[in-house]
């Protein structure tokens, strides 16, 4: 295994160099050799991809992967040639002789048409898929593009978390912390929500693009979702943002899949409800601070929870009734937020 590990490490270095200024020293022979390397590692990938034990041993032996410029995972070997090609094509520092030779090395013509391990057919497929995506995105309309993007990113996140699985829970938490600290928050929250729903068949009003086949592979997803939930429930800031910013429908679906999340969500909704005060002039419940959740939003979220499958609706009503009892069980509007919320829900108190 040792020589193979060395090869992987060297190829990782090559990839890192391919997008940097050091490519200035490359010539046509270097490019050709790098491509041959990618091809050899593609074979390695194909040989080990389906053999879980061997693959895990290799991944363990390799330890933590190099930074973004190099190889990030064993799975990345499958597209090592395309990665290399794209980096070299867009690297302005690449020496002129290497740059001139590159197109012909990648696209030798009809001779390489049938070779499924050569860059040519694989890059052509990439080009075709890229154009297909452009066409679909141009089509616009519907929720397809946004939904598909969230789902794809959720799958990527899941894959990365699984790869880090060997390195322990701390590594997974580190990645999620980094995403939360540096990432685009709205998008990160959306992806988290999607990832927590992957492979779940029954989630309320949400469209379920996955077929039954996807549910079968649930074990891996359940494990990933365990990691995500653990982090989310242990990060108050992220949890609050999650419950505040995700749409009501989606949160209702999530709550019906994950009881722990459902309890936390309901708790937050109750604490936000307690912040509201009754404005006599307006005749309505209004926030006391700019960050509070408005009455309408609160009502909508509770309403959606009441439409979810049991036992959620009963839990919601119990929480509200509990609050109402503590407030003195008044039936008059404007006295207790709980009474008014119960009245505003379709099924009433």
């Amino acid at each position, binding site marked *: 295994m040792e020589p193979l590990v060395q090869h992987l490490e060297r190829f990782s270095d090559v990839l890192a160099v391919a997008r940097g200024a050091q490519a200035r020293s490359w010539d046509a022979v270097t490019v050709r050799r790098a491509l041959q390397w990618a091809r050899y590692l593609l074979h390695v990938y194909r040989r080990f991809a389906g053999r879980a034990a061997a693959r895990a041993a290799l991944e363990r032996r390799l330890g933590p992967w190099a930074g*973004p410029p190099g190889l*990030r995972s064993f799975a*990345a070997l499958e*597209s090592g040639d*395309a*990665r290399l090609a*794209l980096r070299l*094509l*867009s690297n*302005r520092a690449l020496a*002129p002789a290497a*740059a*001139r030779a*590159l*197109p*012909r090395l*990648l*696209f030798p*013509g009809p001779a390489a048409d049938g070779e499924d391990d050569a860059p040519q057919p694989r890059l*052509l497929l*990439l*080009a*075709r*898929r*890229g*154009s*297909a*995506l*452009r*066409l*679909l*995105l141009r*089509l616009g*309309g*519907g*929720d*397809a*593009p946004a*939904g*598909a*993007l969230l*789902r*794809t*990113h959720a*799958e*990527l*996140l899941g894959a*990365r978390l699984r790869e880090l699985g060997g390195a322990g829970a701390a590594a997974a938490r580190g*990645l999620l912390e980094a*995403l939360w600290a*540096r*990432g*685009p928050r*709205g*998008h990160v929250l959306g*992806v988290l929500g999607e990832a927590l729903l992957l492979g779940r068949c029954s989630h309320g009003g949400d*469209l*379920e*693009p*996955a077929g039954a086949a996807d549910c079968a592979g649930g074990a891996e997803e359940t494990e990933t979702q365990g990691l995500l939930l653990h982090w989310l429930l242990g990060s108050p800031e992220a949890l609050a943002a999650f419950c505040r910013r995700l749409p009501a429908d989606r949160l209702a679906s999530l709550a019906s899949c994950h009881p722990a999340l459902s309890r936390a969500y309901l708790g937050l909704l109750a604490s936000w409800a307690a912040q509201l005060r009754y404005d006599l002039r307006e005749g309505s419940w209004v926030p006391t601070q700019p960050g509070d959740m408005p009455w309408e939003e609160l009502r909508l979220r509770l309403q959606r929870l009441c439409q979810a499958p049991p036992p959620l609706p009963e839990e919601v009503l119990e929480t509200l009734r509990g609050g109402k009892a503590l407030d003195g069980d008044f039936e008059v509007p404007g006295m207790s937020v709980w009474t008014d919320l119960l009245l505003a829900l379709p099924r009433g108190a």
Partner: protein
Amino acid sequence: MDSSLCSDLESSGRPSRRDVTILCLEMARDSADLASDYQFWLQKLSVWEQSSTKETQQDTCLHLSRFQEFLKQMYEFLKEMDSNAILERFPTIGQLLAKACWNPLISAYDESQKFIIWCLCCLMNKEPQTPGESQLNSWIRSLLSHILSTIRFNMKEVGLFTEILGYEPVDYYPSLLKNMVLSLVSELRESHLNGLNTQSRMAPERMMSLSQVCVPLVTLPDFEPLVEALLTYHGREPQEVLSPEFFEAVNEAVLSKKMILPASSVVSLWFRHLPSLERATLHLFEKLFSSERHCLREMECCIKESLLPQAACHPAIFRIVDEMFRVVLLETDGAPEVLAALRVFTWCLAEALGRENKQVKFALKTYFPYGAPSLTAVLSQRPDAIPRSHRLQPLLHVSQLLREAVEDHTRGSPRDAFESWFLFAHFGGWVDLAVEQLLRMEADPPEGLLWLLVFYYSPQDGSQQRAQTMVELKALLGRLLTLLRGERLSAVDVQKAAHCPSADPRRPVCGQLVRRLLLSLLLWTPEGHSIAWEAITHMANTDAVTHEIVGFLDQTLYRSDHLCVAASRKLARELLQKLGAQV
């Protein structure tokens, strides 16, 4: 360039002056064609580039395959030249290729992106001398980089998210595309399920543009679920909501095996777009009736593979396919291979109907509206399923019903005669049965059987001519049976008996029918076996007759359930091999 080539070739003295002139003319014409095509496409691309209306998109889709053909020719032309020569010949080629690169309908289509990239590679200057030439090279590189990574999400955060995870576009293109397709499939499914709810229904315009977008992409495997969903979940609009170009593209992809769809989707396609059904039937005919001869086994494979028998379980589809068979039969004057194909097709249809267990769903009348229902009902029974000793009666019944339909002028017209024959031709198994019965008769052959055979082989005859032929056929049978009862059967005697000395030389018994009887006699009687090869070599005096005999033997082997003697099968196989070697 052309004239210098001519003089070079002439001075070498090898090809004749005429050859060289032709070669030069051809080259000049090819090159001139390419140049005028080039101008045409450059102009088209500019028009397409300027607007992205529905009409432009439709026009692009209509031209995709021709443009790919042009790109292919262009590559063949360019690959022999160096960068400078290309630019001298086509100064604006960069423009043309860039416009093609930037048009996703083109770069998504089939293999177009491949030819664009190959052409760009040809344009690369291997030894740039001037800054301009170096600039061209880096421009080509950036264009290649563009076509390989065309997706740029406008949202910065998307890039940031994947970067933190350590992914590059190449890692998620395939799954993003898969998820886009799945999202659209569920949008279609929801729209179909909520058909009555106009709010959640996909607007017809959206269905139309979606189907248009799929035109270049039907052969990309990622799109199969979407294509399938589009074909399955049709809207409730009275008019078709999918574009005809979409149907054509899917049909072509299925026919050329560039895409595999479930049979139900293909049937749905043919239902919704009749030109595709016609094209599929013609495609099958081209395969069946090409110059290369096919044995019935191969025909059956072709027919089944075409999915047409399965589709034809629905009478509306059956009648279109059947109509096309009728036209081909009329045009070829009842060519034996067309008759054989029609017969095999009908078997395959019966099999498909049996599999679907839907015989009762549609009345036979809906499949064969022109035939008398009683006749259709009798004919559609499997003749070989009837016990040997009970076969005569149904045969006589078929004969009687057909005769009524054909000869009773109070009821019908000459058109009915053809229609009856066409109906009968679907179920050729009855003809085999009739011949078998005739050769087994000890007593005088029943008139009904004679009539049936004469009608099958010469449907165009009037009743008087038919009566005359029947008399001759009866005499011929008598002579053959006498020979059989004699001491020793010889090939020469059989051949002699086949020629009737007394008959009217202007109207000999139909040659095909006579040969059919002789061949059956040779195969089915032990006496015939020993002289079979000799008699056949006497008979097969022209290519057409040889082919006919090969066809008969093939048919015998294909469906020989009624041929119980293993020796006959063995003989038929040997004879076929020997004859096959001669053809």
